[in-house]
């Protein structure tokens, strides 16, 4: 599979939030305003990209040679948790301004399904390291696209007359459903039509 195909697959065809429901909690929780949504999106993209490469390396250089593949889940979550902690410290040291902007989102990312999800999907799909890197970045970009669109919709929704029972989360889910409906326009035939498969 070419890198462009992987990019299109994870951003549009298998969008992490709208098609696979990975990372839905922050998607609903942090999409109330667009500044926060962008912060969350950038942090997640950063972590999915780095985590994809690191978990790939851990799997193929540590677990496979020792035939400990069954420890995949346990190892990956520990690697991701320490990675997030490390990133937090590095960013705090290098760029206090960036830390100010992203700091509050980083701890939430450890328990974001999207990060563990992409790490496992990379292994299931037998990607090589460059493909894993692309997939990690694309998954994060798809997440960012969805959460930023959603935050803009919710900012508009705040000004709309919504029935009381639907205010807040229910209308957010329904808007996400309508977004998912429009994302159904992207399917495997997109790749065939662009001669990528």
């Amino acid at each position, binding site marked *: 599979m070419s890198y462009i195909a992987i990019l299109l697959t994870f951003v549009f065809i298998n969008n992490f939030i*709208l*098609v*696979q*429901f*990975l*990372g*839905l*909690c922050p998607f*609903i929780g942090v999409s109330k305003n667009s500044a926060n949504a962008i912060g969350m999106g950038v942090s997640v993209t950063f972590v999915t990209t780095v985590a994809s490469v690191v978990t790939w390396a851990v799997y193929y250089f540590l677990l496979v040679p020792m035939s400990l593949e*069954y*420890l*995949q*889940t*346990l190892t990956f*979550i*520990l690697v991701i*948790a320490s990675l997030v902690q490390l990133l937090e410290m590095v960013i705090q040291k290098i760029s206090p301004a960036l830390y100010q902007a992203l700091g509050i989102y980083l701890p939430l990312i*450890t*328990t*974001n*399904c999207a990060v*563990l*999800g992409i790490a*496992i*999907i990379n292994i*299931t799909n037998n990607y090589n390291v460059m493909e894993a890197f692309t997939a990690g970045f694309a998954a994060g970009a798809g997440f960012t696209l969805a959460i930023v669109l959603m935050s803009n919709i919710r900012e508009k929704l705040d000004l709309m007359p919504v029935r*009381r*029972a*639907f205010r*807040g*989360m*229910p*209308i*957010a*889910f*329904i808007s*996400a*459903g*309508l977004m*998912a*409906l429009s*994302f*159904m326009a992207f399917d495997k035939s997109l790749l065939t039509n662009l001669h990528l498969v």
Partner: protein
Amino acid sequence: MKLNMNELTKGIFKENPVFIIVLGLCPTLGVSTQVSNALGMSAGVLFVLLFSNLLISALRNFIPDSIHIPAYIVIIASLVTIIELVMHAFVPALYSALGVYLPLIVVNCIILGRAEAFAARNTVMDSILDAIGMSIGFALGLILISVIRELFGSGTISLFAMGNFDGVIRIPWFYNNPIRVMSLAPGALLLMGYLKAFFDWKSARKKG
């Protein structure tokens, strides 16, 4: 020992993890295309939640405060690995149907949330009741969503095959007129929105 039944029942409606606290959405929406998957997922969550609450509340005085989250994650991830291996060995069809959502039980907010909010500061007995109540609440939510999605989306109710019964109940009228979108991703989100609105309305009315 007196059993605190309130810990058991609160998870079923008043603090239902799916509809009231809205936790653990990824598996709820991801595996709810078929009732059999929902049942498998509920069993997995029951096992992991029960034993994580039990272990964490038993160890709550030994785990140092500064590393409590990593410690909880290790306990939860080991339990998830056990359930993965068991399902792979005994119900391979269910294992592949649940796919990536099975290892993702590790990051299911319900489990870490209950460990942090309940098991870390309550007795073992209360934590077990809390885990059972929360799992029943999660299972009911998941089963409700999956029954609606499968009924409207494909007109069937899939259970597990036993003897002559192939495990799939076909509902006459719906089977010929399925609303396909219900079993696809948008249907799950739309249904979740309407159910959440219903439960919000219901609990607002209860409060008066």
